[in-house]
């Protein structure tokens, strides 16, 4: 299962800016809350996280020592 940005629905105010920013159309507004569709095209650009003013969206990195 491919990792996708993490949503905290309680923080989402439904502004929809992240939907407009998302290049791969992974984010959709369901009612007034953001929802994420899993897609291989998400390249973890983190722009959805950057524009989210409420902190509802996050793109955490897994740190791995090779």
């Amino acid at each position, binding site marked *: 299962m491919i990792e996708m940005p993490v949503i905290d629905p309680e923080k989402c105010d439904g502004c929809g*800016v992240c939907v407009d920013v998302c290049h791969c159309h992974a984010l959709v507004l369901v009612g007034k809350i953001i929802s994420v569709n899993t897609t291989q095209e998400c390249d973890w650009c*983190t722009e959805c*996280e*950057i524009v989210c003013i409420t902190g509802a969206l996050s793109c*955490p990195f897994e*740190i*791995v*020592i*090779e």
Partner: protein
Amino acid sequence: MAIQVDFLKKTPYFSGLNSAALDSIAKLIFEKKVERGEIFLLEGESDEVLYFVASGAVKIFKTSAEGKEQILSIARTGDSFNDVAVFDSGPNLAAAQAMAPVILYGVRKNNLEAIVRDYPKVATNVTGVLANRVRYLVSLVEDLSFKHVMGRIAKLLLEYGGSETGAGQRLTQQDMAAMAGTVREVVGRSLKVLEEEGIIKLDRHRIVITDREALKKVIEAPS
């Protein structure tokens, strides 16, 4: 489309003004729509327009001679940008790119001067906006110039790095910024530098430390 007076009232520039004043000011403001990805303001050029983000988000950034990008800020709904160039009649300090389909409200320099002249409250508001901008940019300069932020980021990558997939704690760039005592923009730049130096590899949602010894040297480097 009519300029939304309710929106203007909520911007730091025009807060505290009465409806009649806002109606007059709205007549001097024009709307501009920009597509996602479009760079509509170029660094070094003269535009003489102050913009407010009515909807969407705008990346404000500078580009070095080598093509490296430094994000100065992200302007969101209600935020203004290009203030300095409008007030000092100099070139645009930074470029602006729409991160989404964006609606902007613009005010030309001559109209803004008339607004400031007619409504002294706006002059007070502008002082506050510019003071906040200076405060933020000074802290960014401090981070980029004086602090050994790269070393602190290298340290937390080692501290939080796991030896196998799923073992390490997950951190957003905002988390790393808070832990390193800096801002997200500096974290993004530091990660790019570490990747260019072959010390880490950014693999989608994974930061892979490919040269642990080199990362330790970054931590030990003098500030």
